[in-house]
């Protein structure tokens, strides 16, 4: 029997708010343990939650950015479970009335076809404390760090629309891009600001059954999500074919062994409404105000790039997937750089150079203003491409303008025909065999001669001018 997988994702995204969700403690989990705490996030007797407006705005922008519909009324519930990472015994989460419903992300599937992966809902919740298990000599000890308790999260719950690990990975990449572009979170799986759980079941291909699902956790990269899902699909397939039933449970991905292993279930009960966090009522006006704060979303931007700047769909998707890259690209164009030149030089020269130096595009010394000047000199043939690459390297180390670097280091292209004439004559005198080849119509020999002249000029000659002069001198077709 051939099986297909039915996959749904639950994604926790940590919002990059300045404070925690229900108090004014800094939202910085990486500080020394337990420094960012107060009676509210430690839940001392008498403490009352004070819901953060910033968290509501960041969460709402995230929902709108994913095309979800903000609900006019949402509310927090108490999700009861007893575990030392949650000493107050309940987590504030929106179980019954989530912040938004619907929405979705468009991806291209393995077959190259567009596919929409729908969201079921997005709700807000507070993070719980972090447990650290250590050894004190031979005695195992467990420590609790409350820096993370009360950190604002949203949980994005998808419909079970996914069929393959590839779709899940594409979805997560697009989700990350979109959330980053609204500015609500960095969405880094490596740093734990995006955490993904996958619910996986299998069924005979072509049927509409919904079978018992298994939840898989503990993947800390997009690739791991794909690997864990692929493993789990084959594990379940083998189990079913071996006559074994799939039981509802949770498994952890082991990235070293590349397998999923069953974990102990946490005890979780139903949620009751929390009487202390006010019900959240969003007016249409407020929702529209939030919508107006949304930046241009990547998909819309990509479409515009194709229309406005004449780049291909693929190039546009790449350029628009990172707000910083897109901004840099448009800034170059704004300063008169031709779109194709801007795209080409940004992707093939500048970005690798930035990466190599472990810098960020937005804060690297080669600003769009400086880079545009360099590209202008290239377009006006004041320098050639080789020289431009050299100048770019110098621009990382010096504040000088590209013009100054070009002048100081003699990168200026030689287009002066009298200066080139003598160089060419010398080369022609030395390369008699190649000259003969050119005369007999071998194109390759022409390229060889151009290279020789270029070398003789120290790389500064204008190749176009060399070709013109050579053609004239040798009387050959270029």
């Amino acid at each position: 029997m051939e099986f297909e997988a039915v996959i749904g994702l639950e994604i926790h995204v940590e919002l990059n708010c300045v404070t925690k969700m229900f108090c004014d403690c800094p939202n910085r989990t990486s500080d020394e343990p337990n420094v960012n705490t107060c009676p509210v996030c430690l839940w001392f007797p008498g403490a009352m939650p004070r819901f953060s407006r910033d968290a509501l705005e960041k969460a709402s922008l995230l929902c709108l950015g994913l095309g979800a519909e903000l609900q006019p009324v949402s509310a927090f519930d108490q999700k009861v479970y007893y575990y030392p990472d949650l000493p107050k015994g309940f987590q504030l989460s929106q179980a019954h009335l989530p912040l938004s419903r619907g929405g979705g992300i468009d991806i291209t599937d393995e077959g190259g076809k567009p596919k929409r992966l729908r969201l079921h809902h997005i709700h807000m919740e507070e993070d719980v404390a972090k447990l650290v298990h250590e050894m004190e000599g031979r005695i195992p000890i467990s420590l609790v760090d409350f820096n993370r308790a009360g950190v604002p999260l949203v949980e994005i719950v998808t419909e079970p629309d996914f069929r393959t690990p590839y779709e899940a990975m594409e979805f997560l990449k697009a989700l990350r891009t979109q959330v980053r572009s609204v500015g609500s979170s960095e969405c880094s799986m490596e740093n734990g600001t995006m955490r993904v759980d996958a619910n996986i079941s299998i069924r005979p291909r072509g049927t509409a059954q919904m079978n018992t699902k298994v939840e898989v956790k503990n993947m800390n990269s997009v690739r791991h999500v794909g690997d864990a899902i692929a493993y789990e699909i084959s594990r379940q397939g083998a189990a079913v074919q071996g006559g074994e039933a799939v039981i509802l449970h949770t498994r952890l991905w082991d990235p070293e062994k590349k397998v999923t292993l069953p974990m102990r279930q946490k005890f979780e009960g139903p949620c009751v409404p929390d009487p202390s966090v006010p019900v959240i009522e969003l007016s249409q006006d407020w929702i529209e105000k939030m919508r107006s704060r949304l930046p241009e979303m990547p998909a819309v931007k990509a479409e515009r790039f194709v229309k406005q700047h004449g780049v291909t769909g693929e190039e546009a998707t790449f350029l628009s997937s990172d707000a910083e890259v897109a901004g840099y690209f448009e800034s170059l164009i704004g300063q008169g750089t031709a779109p194709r030149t801007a795209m080409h030089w940004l992707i093939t020269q500048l970005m690798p150079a930035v990466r190599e130096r472990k810098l960020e595009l937005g804060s690297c010394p080669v600003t769009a203003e400086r880079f545009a000047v360099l590209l202008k000199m290239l377009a006006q043939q004041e320098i050639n491409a080789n020289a431009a690459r050299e100048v770019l390297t110098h621009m990382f180390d010096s504040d000088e303008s590209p013009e100054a670097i070009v002048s100081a280091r003699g990168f200026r292209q030689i287009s002066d025909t009298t200066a080139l004439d003598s160089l060419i004559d010398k080369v022609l005198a030395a390369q008699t065999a190649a000259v003969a080849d050119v005369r007999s119509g071998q194109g390759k020999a022409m390229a060889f001669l151009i290279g020789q002249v270029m070398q003789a000029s120290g790389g500064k000659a204008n190749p176009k001018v060399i070709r013109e002069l050579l053609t004239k001198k040798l009387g050959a077709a270029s």
Partner: protein
Amino acid sequence: MIDSVFTYRNPDTARAGEGQLNGLKIAIQPNISVAGWPTEAGSNALVNYKALEDATIVQRLRQAGASLCGSTRMSEFGFGLQDSSAGEALRQQAADAELVLDYMGESRLAALRAAVCGFKPSYGLVSRFGLVDLIPSMECCGVLSGSLKNIRDILKAIAGPDELDFSLPDEKIPDFSPQKIDPRKTTIGIIKEAQSNLPAGQEKPFRASVEELKKAGFNLQEMSLPDLSLFSLVHQIVGSVEASSCAGRYDSVRYGQRAPGAKNWNEMYLLSRGSAFGLLLKSYLFQGAYFQFERYQAFENACRIRAHLLKEMHRFASLTDFLVFPAVDNNPSDAPASLADTYAQFASTLFANVTGQPALYLPPVPGAGHPGFQLAGPRLSDSKLLALGEHILNTRREGK
């Protein structure tokens, strides 16, 4: 004798400042946070816990010049009146007023025992910041005093928005300046079933209370609420579920006493929680957990019935100005009580905690042959309700 009343006496009473409360001596309970005071809420789960900051009401009382004289002995988490000395500080004239958290009617029945006035304000009128909570959607800080003027002054000082309690609705706070009541223009409703549901021997005294109101010239109007008995059911289910969730934070691990002998931390948590709570509270938390985990539908139904009862009370509010209710203490002996006994004890008072409306207990005229009665009004009618009480007490004084 005083020590059987207070669990903590403020060594620093000289600090009382000037203000509208001008040195008024107020006793509180140790489930109201005062920075540095033991705040154990009558429970082993909070043994040795000292509050880190003042509750908003404490801070406001101090600002208004009140003198906090100490905290009184209380039942575990203030649920019921078992082992509570609420009202005693007034009876022994050790305080001018007492604050008692009201979950089911504790402040009003404590007032009945001490033969003073007891007032439970509208839900959402007084900040809950710094109160060791148990049933967040029903609890409210009640005020006991022999003088309604004291109660009015205290309410004026503590009521109103608080930036530390976001649950307070954004609404207009009643004007607590004194006002006049004209009995001929005032209708007081009596719920027929409140009368007929009374235990044997209590009906006659309640009729005597109604007589007093009639004599004072008020219009009395009988109305019917066949679902009156559902108040207790709703309170039992919603109250216990909230308590079961809420008490999670009193884990006896970060404060209170950890139970010895656990093999791992999960067991340590379980044993500590198990040994921290007393029998009555434990059975209440068990009941709540049962409804939450096994009968969630019943909890949802109880919430719906609560909404229905609120609607009924709104309907009465459109027909009358106030309602009169009996006040009955069904377990004055304070013997160890089961949950059922406890609920039976507060059968006459818990309606106001379910609806969130203000309720005032007025003691009887000495020798009147009745235990006093309760008056209730719609939400935020607090000032008017106090004016009604003042009018009735004045009428008594003038009648003498």
